[in-house]
């Protein structure tokens, strides 16, 4: 452990940690745009700068390791002024249409603009014009909102491994695009949406079926119901409908999702969902019946077959899709209630 001082308070921190990590441990919030603990540190947005009290030097918290007896000021007047001006020039190249922006209420730029009390129109001048559109059927990139933090391109190359995005050109014209603006699929996009999830502002946004505001939804953590990786995710719920999915940091998914986890949730609200039990009647067609009727019929028929042909004439197919609890109970049902071991599920398929 080494001793450092954050805003005058003495702290004992493990050596090798960055100032940002030390502050986080100490419960002090430092703004960041380009930082993500899973990605290689970039240190490019500069919003996380803190002041060294001895030298008055400004250093990025996300990439600077702590040193013994370091005296750090996270919110000194100099730091506050620099962050404010930095936000102001970022806003000078940003389409400030928060009223109708997808990310209003859930946007770091908006949050910090409020926190640092910026003068929105302080700096004027030209804005970057992009030659390329980037979109697919799941999401799109609004260049006028992009703050060039590069997290989309980095997650795509460093974690997802698809290398779709290029951070092209240089200087003021730096932009995120596919090479030559080719179709995203041609550039290798598999629609995983991890770039969308990591975007801190309203630049990369899903094409949503249902609109919602950040403050209108509840987020419930659950396990993805597709493949065996078991990704953790948040279901975003508005008016008792799942309207979106956001990755959660599970031990098996480390905050990543695939196209199915991120975007294939429309089935939940789908009009073709079954809502009432169906019974095949004499006409050969399936007809809606009440729960009581359907369940009683199944119980009667099961009993009848069991009585006539024996329990082993009944086959139970459980599911690799339903919960452990349900599999257990069905197993118990087949074995204890019906009395057969004719039970399987599609592990083989």
């Amino acid at each position, binding site marked *: 452990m080494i001793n450092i001082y954050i805003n005058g308070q003495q702290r004992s921190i493990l050596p090798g940690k960055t100032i940002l990590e030390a502050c986080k441990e100490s419960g002090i919030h430092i703004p960041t745009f380009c930082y993500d603990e899973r990605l290689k540190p970039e240190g*490019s947005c500069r919003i996380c700068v803190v002041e060294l009290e001895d030298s008055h030097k400004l250093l990025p918290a996300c990439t600077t390791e702590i040193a013994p007896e370091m005296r750090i000021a996270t919110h000194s007047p100099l730091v506050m002024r620099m962050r404010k*001006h*930095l936000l102001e020039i970022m806003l*000078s*190249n940003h389409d400030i249409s928060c009223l109708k922006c997808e990310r209003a209420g859930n946007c770091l730029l908006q949050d910090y603009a409020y926190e640092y009390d910026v003068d929105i129109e302080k700096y004027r*001048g030209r804005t970057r014009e992009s030659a390329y559109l980037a979109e697919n059927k799941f999401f799109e990139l609004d260049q006028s909102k992009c703050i060039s933090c590069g997290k989309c391109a980095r997650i795509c190359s460093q974690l997802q491994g698809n290398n779709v995005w290029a951070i092209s050109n240089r200087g003021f014209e730096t932009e995120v695009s596919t090479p030559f603006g080719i179709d995203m699929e041609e550039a290798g996009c598999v629609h995983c949406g991890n770039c969308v999830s990591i975007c801190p502002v309203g630049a990369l946004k899903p094409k949503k079926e249902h609109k919602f505001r950040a403050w209108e939804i509840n987020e419930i953590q659950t396990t993805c119901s597709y493949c065996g990786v078991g990704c953790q995710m948040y279901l975003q719920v508005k008016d008792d409908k799942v309207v979106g999915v956001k990755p959660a940091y599970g031990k098996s998914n480390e905050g990543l999702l695939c196209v199915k986890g991120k975007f294939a949730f429309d089935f939940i609200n789908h009009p073709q969902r079954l809502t009432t039990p169906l019974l095949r009647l004499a006409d050969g067609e399936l007809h809606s019946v009440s729960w009581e009727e359907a369940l009683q019929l199944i119980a009667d028929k099961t009993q009848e077959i069991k009585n006539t042909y024996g329990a082993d004439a009944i086959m139970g197919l459980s599911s690799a899709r339903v919960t452990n609890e349900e599999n257990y109970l069905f197993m118990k049902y087949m074995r204890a209630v019906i009395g057969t071991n004719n039970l399987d599920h599609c592990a083989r398929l």
Partner: protein
Amino acid sequence: MRDVKSGCTRVLVCAGTCCVSGKAFVIIENFEKELAAAGILDIKVVKTGCFGLCSEGPIVLTQPDDYFYAKVSPQDVKEIVEEHFMQGRPVQRLLYKDASNGEALSLLEADFYKKQHKVALARCGVIDPEKIDDFIEQDGFKALEKALLTMTPGQVVEEIKNSGLRGRGGAGFPSGKKWEFTKNAAGEKKYVVCNGDEGDPGAFMDESILEGDPLSVVEAMAIAGYAIGANEGYIYVRAEYPLAIHRLKIALAQAKERGFLGKNILNSGFDFELSIRYGAGAFVCGEETALISSIEGRKGTPQLRPPYPAVKGLFGCPTLINNVETYANIGKIIMMGAEWFKAMGTAGSPGTKVFALAGNVKNIGLVEVPMGITLREIVYDIGQGIPDGRSFKAAQTGGPSGGCIPIEYIDTPIDYESLGEIGSMMGSGGLIVMDDSKCMVGIAKFFMQFMVEESCGKCAPCRLGLVRIYEALARITDGNGTMEDLQELEELAEMVSSLSFCALGQSAPNPLKTTLRYFKDEYLAHINEKRCPAGECEKLLNYEITSLCIGCRKCLKACPAAAIIGKVKEQHVIDKTKCIKCGACIESCAVKAIIRA
């Protein structure tokens, strides 16, 4: 065979970039042709690197009789051969002459060379850079031999450390320390890199060294490899320097052939290989971590430091990076010793420094001077002052990272600390002299435009802040500036300096800061009086017709905006609301009655 009347056995023709564009190659060809035609076999034509006095090029020197021909054209060659070589009568009209008394001078007698002291440039203009034997004849590879055969790597590093040599590329970091760090860094594989990405617009000393004495860099890199424990090196050169690349390639091939590169150099058991990598046009690649990215085949954006390249550099291995001029000093230091080197220059900045003297100064070219010499000596003694009867206004050092030094500081000694104190920096050694016709707001704008285009775009303050600075400066030079703009400039300069990722971004506001500091009145004149004191900002110019006007109507007809009114034989008047400040009227006026102010 004809008698040779002159005492000339060698004709040296400068083949630096400037002289080559003055057809130096044709001159060489003509010499060879004419000498052959005349049957003269004992005069050797030597194609050399840059002599330094570029404004007098193409330059031809004869040796050992020591005549100095300036501004030679290919047509002059025949006359030199016939008159000088065959008749012993040097061609007077082509000889370089003293500006004050018109006397012909030898190279070393010229004012331009008097105060110079050549270490890094010692062989430039002396040897044929495409011939390794010339280099060897001039003590080439003796330092390598000494290091490999008589010194331990530790002793080499110690020697460089003791010499006090500081990096000539910009920031002036002590080179010996870099060598020591890299030597001590853990790692099987290490690299030596030469930074030849001379990006500072207005500096061309690295180019000249690579063109004029490429093997000195090769030798130094091999010494460095031996010292730090590296067997591989890269020379990173701008693709804009085709001649330098060409000569480097020859140098590498010859050095390899002679066993100064490759396996078991000089039977010492030491192996060293060098390859060339081209830059592809990015100023930021002069920054060492960006340069490493570029050598690795990626875009040249600066990377986090620490770890420093000495610990984790090229391909993740400990890497020593020095620039061309730094390497050009190494051989001499090894040969002559640290004490010899320290005897030159100042205590804090020993040795010499090469400057590319350019701009509004009579003698333009490369000058190598001991550190600590004053700006005045360079501008007035070596450079021979300001031409066209104008006066000195400022000197810009350090390129886009440096600053503008006003007349008040013309006696400042040129060394790392002194330049830093007055808000500028040594940089790679560009030294642009500006006369009183140069607008300092315009200069700041020029550098800012440069940096806007060269910003790599990685960090937000540099990417965005510089554009806003440029735009505010443009408003001021266009006559739309306000005092708020001035305030904004100060704020943005502070932010970009303190928040940018790399040294280039951090120093990018320096030209702005120094002009604001030393020439604030010019800014104020632009803003408050809508006037450009230097008369350079076109949008702020005013045209007036004086009483000299004879009413000839020529200007009235020439004016494309119909802004001039007046009757025949009466003084005309310019309607300032219509005037587009194109200057057509001035050119049309036969009696110089129209003035611009």
